[in-house]
């Protein structure tokens, strides 16, 4: 049998393979497929259910219920309450993101070398070579003109006037038709998320997948990781099913996500001062532009334009991002008749975002219910960056012909005209004034050369343990400043290559 889903037959499911991979998102799937392609036996253990495109929800409510991690109820604990966006399904967050593919920037490898005693040119060359192959595997292409939609077109035109040096985004997508449903999973089967690419390939190559199977802990014999154990959970009722134990003859690879990996390792008895530390993210927020003519942002690719010109200074990435009407209803300020009046304008809105390359470190701890808790509050320097991102997006809207913008900042006017743009210079630096989300996450089990400041060594191996490797974004010791999926996948494949070489 190649797939075990939720079951309650009163029998423990016991399996074994050379490699057990916990998590089936960007990291887990990439590591698993590399191992399987080289003839290794692999079992992938995923906490969420396996949903094919025909199973995907179409509404935002359905996405929250069926695809997000625990109804997206993980929020930052700090000055502001900002949701942490992660999926829990076979394919992980690759199912619900916009499939944006960005190569690891060269300066990141230099920074790792300088600050964390690994990386440098040699690693860069290896990672980029793997990224070349991934791009072929997953049909990476630039969004076609026909799939852009008006909201991406006007961003592109405005960028040319302002000189933001933006570009149409390269995505893991094959023949995107611009259905605007990236966030709910692509029912048109265009997005090359790992649940429709690498994971089925692992199964075709003889691998096994356990879905609806949250891992309770990694098991050890002495210091050597021997497998994982847990209990199947019904995805809807959350009722417990049969227990499972999956033995790893060679290595256990953890790719459970930035929030879950530190918690799982802690639950498994790993003691390390750096565990859960050095968490970083791209907190982002959006600005609506209000246009005279309908924009109909619900048509066209969800995200197709981006600018990385400001990645270093002030430290932000700009992107288009269409929001479904039901999300806009809660995003706009006000209630009652005032809110209904504001919603009337929906067709005339374009929603563009900035993702702040924040340096403030956060921390992942374990909550009373065993779930991850994200402690995170941006410091003043990052809030200045954050505010600068909003200013840049606002200028882009006006350059595109918006008659007003809705910055969504508490304490400021609901709408600002071009003449009022200067008011953003004094926008508050209190995170509570902003509606933001944390989309790209890094750290928590960082790798590095210094044992005092890292959980894993530069090969992703958990220190003081054998046969236990981490292969998700939790190993990334710095904020990339770009979408991390490509880096996560390449590093995970590299980890798999190293394991195969060692074997």
């Amino acid at each position, binding site marked *: 049998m190649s*797939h075990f889903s939720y079951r309650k037959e009163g029998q423990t499911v016991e399996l074994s393979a050379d490699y057990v991979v916990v998590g089936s998102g960007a990291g887990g799937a990439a590591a698993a497929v590399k191992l399987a392609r080289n003839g290794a036996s692999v079992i992938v253990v995923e906490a969420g259910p396996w949903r094919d495109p025909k199973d995907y929800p179409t509404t*935002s409510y359905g996405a929250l219920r069926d695809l997000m991690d625990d109804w997206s109820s993980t929020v930052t604990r700090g000055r502001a309450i900002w949701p942490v966006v992660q999926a829990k399904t076979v394919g992980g967050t690759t199912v619900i993101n916009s499939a944006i593919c960005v190569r690891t920037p060269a300066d990141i490898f230099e920074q790792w070398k300088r600050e964390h005693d690994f990386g440098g040119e040699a690693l860069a060359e290896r990672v980029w070579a793997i990224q070349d192959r991934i791009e072929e595997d997953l049909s990476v292409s630039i969004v076609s003109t026909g799939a852009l939609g008006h909201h991406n077109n006007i961003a592109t035109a405005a960028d040319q006037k302002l000189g933001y040096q933006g570009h149409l985004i390269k995505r893991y997508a094959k023949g995107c038709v611009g259905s605007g449903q990236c966030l709910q999973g692509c029912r048109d089967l265009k997005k090359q998320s790992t649940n429709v690419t690498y994971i089925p390939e692992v199964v075709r190559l003889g691998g096994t997948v356990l879905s609806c199977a949250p891992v309770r802990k990694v098991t050890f014999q002495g210091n050597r990781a021997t497998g994982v154990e847990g209990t199947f959970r019904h995805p809807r009722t959350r009722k417990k099913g049969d227990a499972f134990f999956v033995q790893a003859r060679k290595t256990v690879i953890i790719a459970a996500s930035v929030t879950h990996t530190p918690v799982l390792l802690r639950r498994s008895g790993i003691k390390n001062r750096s565990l859960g530390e050095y968490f970083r993210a791209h907190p982002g927020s959006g600005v609506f532009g209000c246009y005279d003519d309908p924009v109909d942002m619900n048509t066209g690719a969800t995200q197709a334009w981006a600018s990385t010109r400001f990645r270093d200074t002030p430290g932000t990435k700009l992107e288009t991002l269409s929001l479904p009407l039901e999300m806009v209803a809660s995003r706009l300020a006000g209630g009652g008749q005032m809110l209904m009046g504001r919603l009337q304008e929906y067709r005339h809105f374009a929603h563009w975002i900035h993702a702040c390359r924040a340096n403030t470190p956060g921390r992942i701890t374990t909550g009373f219910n065993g779930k991850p808790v994200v402690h995170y509050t941006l410091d003043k320097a990052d809030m200045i960056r954050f505010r600068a991102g909003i200013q840049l997006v606002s200028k882009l809207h006006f350059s595109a012909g918006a008659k007003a913008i809705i910055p969504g900042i508490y304490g400021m006017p609901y709408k600002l005209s071009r003449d009022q743009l200067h008011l953003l210079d004094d926008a508050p630096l209190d995170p509570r004034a902003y509606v933001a989300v944390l989309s790209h996450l890094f750290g928590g089990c960082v790798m590095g050369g210094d044992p005092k400041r890292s959980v894993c060594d530069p090969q992703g191996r958990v220190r003081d343990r054998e046969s236990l490797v981490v292969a998700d974004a939790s190993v990334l010791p710095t904020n990339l400043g770009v979408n991390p999926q490509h880096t996560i996948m390449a590093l995970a494949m590299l980890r798999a290559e190293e394991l195969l070489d060692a074997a």
Partner: protein
Amino acid sequence: MSWFVLFAAKAMMPTSETLPGVSEMGIRTFVKTFLSETNWLTWLGVMGASILFMISPLITIGLPLPACLLTQKALDRHATKAATHRIYLFRQMIFLVKMVAGFCWGAHPTIRARFAMSPYTGDPGTWRFQ
């Protein structure tokens, strides 16, 4: 208990001169489904927010009455003030009510048609068993 959520959602997204409100979009069934499907933390948040909405007119518009006894005009003022309240946790909780109302309202075929969008084809809620 779902009555509190229903009341708060209707107050947050009432029928206006130009748009039908959430009460015409099957909110009763939606709230029932939502409360039965969601996790306990979200359930607690939404329920707490709805009760807060009911008991807070005194701190939003200075009227010592539960929200259900307010006139339509006062209720509307309460909804606006609650959603933009200066206390961060207060307005964040009210955000949860808006979220529930918005999910129901914005996904309804009537509303989508108003905004020139084709209807959603539904959320099958299925997954691979084998």
